[in-house]
């Protein structure tokens, strides 16, 4: 369900991140985990954020949820979600958005479910969490009103039925029984389905999926992706998929953002990026994926490691590992430039990286 270009251009973006900067103030210096990231996400669209570990992709998601914990802080930029800036929202306003219009799925379903609580309770609680939101205000008298008249809350029975229904929707067999199980009695795939059910509990507009399939077996991965595809099609939820796995991206995303050392280095529609990657880093990432059956293809790892984020080289962050880098790259930081419709690259050597001019 690729959104057609017309709609993408005309529609208001659901999420408009502008020059987001999230820094960590550590003893060893300021770590710029997210450093000037801008992108848009349109209704019904799925955008993949790709990069190595520590490139800032998870911190981007955490910033959008406003769940960056100490010593990290959003130091600049705007996150416009349905036209409203999340950076300037109060903690209470944020709390109401989280799990409501804005939901998140985490990487490891083993640790994201509370081990001592039954699954059913964990789902029903997340349904009930937002039920009393609209009546939260009013200080003492508001509290008294809620106490005397709890009808605004969803009853346990109602929440239970809805949870069973959710479990059924995410493809869990015998949901009634599963509701009474503890997380350790379920498999990893089942648990991730439960996490997705929790995320879907309040019908979110935007789903942030932080490596949702990384901790799972390949066959289970495919099932979970299929489930997410299904949800996307049925509900029209926009999804920001954070992953390091190009395989997942190529199956699932409409557009791809490639991040490196806290910055976006390339951004393009999926086919464009796979056919015509222009940043040396993207090319390196694609070349480092093993391909089954293709004997002529040799896996080429990117040399070197991600530089320490508190001690980045001047100029282009990738210059220390880039096969094309010259003295200029090490001095001047490249800007993101649009080289084709919707295709943005931040590289001085963009002319040398075209498919014809074989570079990396």
């Amino acid at each position, binding site marked *: 369900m690729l959104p057609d270009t017309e709609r993408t251009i005309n529609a208001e973006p659901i999420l408009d991140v502008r020059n987001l900067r999230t820094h960590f103030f550590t003893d060893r210096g300021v770590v710029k985990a997210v450093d000037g990231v801008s992108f848009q996400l349109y209704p019904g669209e799925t955008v993949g954020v790709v990069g190595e570990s520590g490139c800032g992709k998870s911190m981007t998601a955490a910033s959008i949820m406003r769940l960056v914990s100490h010593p990290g802080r959003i130091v600049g930029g705007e996150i416009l979600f349905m036209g409203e800036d999340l950076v300037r929202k109060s903690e209470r306003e944020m709390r109401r958005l989280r*799990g409501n219009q804005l939901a998140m799925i985490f990487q490891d379903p083993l640790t994201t479910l509370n081990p001592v609580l039954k699954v059913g309770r964990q789902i029903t609680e997340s349904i009930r969490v937002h039920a009393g939101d609209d009546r939260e205000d009013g200080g003492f008298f508001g509290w008294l009103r809620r106490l005397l008249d709890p009808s605004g809350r969803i009853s346990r029975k109602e929440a239970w039925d809805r949870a069973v229904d959710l479990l059924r929707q995410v493809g869990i067999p015998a949901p009634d029984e599963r509701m*009474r199980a503890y997380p350790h009695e379920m498999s990893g795939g089942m648990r991730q389905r439960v996490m997705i059910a929790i995320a879907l509990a309040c019908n979110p507009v935007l789903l942030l999926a932080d490596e949702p399939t990384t901790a799972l077996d390949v066959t289970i991965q495919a099932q979970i992706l299929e489930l997410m595809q299904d949800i996307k099609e049925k509900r029209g939820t926009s999804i920001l998929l954070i992953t390091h796995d190009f395989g997942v991206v190529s199956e699932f995303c409409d557009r791809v953002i490639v991040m490196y050392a806290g910055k976006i280095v390339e951004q393009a529609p999926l086919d464009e990026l796979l056919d015509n990657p222009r940043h040396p880093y993207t090319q390196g990432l694609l070349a480092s994926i093993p391909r089954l059956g293709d004997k002529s293809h040799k896996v080429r790892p990117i040399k070197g490691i991600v530089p320490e984020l508190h001690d980045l080289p001047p100029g282009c962050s990738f210059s220390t590992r880039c096969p094309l880098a010259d003295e200029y790259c090490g001095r001047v930081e490249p800007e993101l430039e649009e080289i084709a419709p919707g295709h943005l690259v931040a590289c001085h050597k963009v002319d040398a990286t075209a498919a014809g001019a074989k570079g990396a």
Partner: protein
Amino acid sequence: MATATPTTPVDGRAARRRAWARTREQLADFWRRFSKNRLAVVGGVVLLLVIIMGLFAPWIAPHDPTLPNFRNRFAPPAWMEGGSWEHPLGTDQLGRDMLSRIIWGARASLKVGAVVISFATVVGIFMGLVSGYYGGWVDVVIQRLSDILLAFPYLVLAIALMGVMGPGFGNLILALVYKEWVTPSRIVRGEVLAAKNVEYVEAARAVGARDRHIMWREILPNTFSSVIVVATLRVAWVILMEASLSFLGLGVQPPEPAWGSMIAQGREYIFSSWWLATFPGIAILLTVLGINLLGEGLRDALDPRLRE
């Protein structure tokens, strides 16, 4: 999409039955681990006997524990020369039945132990949760307060408090809870600090849960197993404290029987009539030992690292 599809009642009942079967299985599993530790089982049995003694004292005790009989003072235990089965453990300096007094004394000890630990645990859980979860100055204030309380020797503090407030059951409870809450609060705080950055707490925050929801509903249940163990072990300590205070005349007041005051009174006759001080002493020893053995067994059986 959001409409609920109610499950058929038959379905729900079957699921509930299976869930109950699983719970039974877990209990059986717990028992398997617990019963492997023979000493813990013995400790549990001893404590159970003491609890039965305390609960059913009016029906078990052969005599009124406060009724003196001046014709039959210092009667020795039944197996000694001059003893009779009328008073199996003999009588005290006022001719009161020792066995009955020990049985009633169990009641006093357990009452103080249970009430103090209940209050202390509730207060401690609250303080520990708040302290660990919010951190910052709240944490500093609560922790320094605990440090101050811990810096005083327990007994000295309790004596001072009892001296100021005067004897009485309520004051006794207060004097012990005053410091006893620190232990559970430290335990809970530690568990909260460990759980605070765990992913499921992050996940709860990501669905928009309030702080108090996260504290009480997500983190607290994770601390239960350690709180249970600590509370059990501390009961022994509190019973010992109650006995000490009663020994000093600051705890349970005569004529109500308490093991501590029985030792204090019997101490004067230790050479002529040793049973006056010895039997209550053995009662304290067995109770405290039993609780400690049980507590350690529980700790091993509830250790999350040994689970699954």
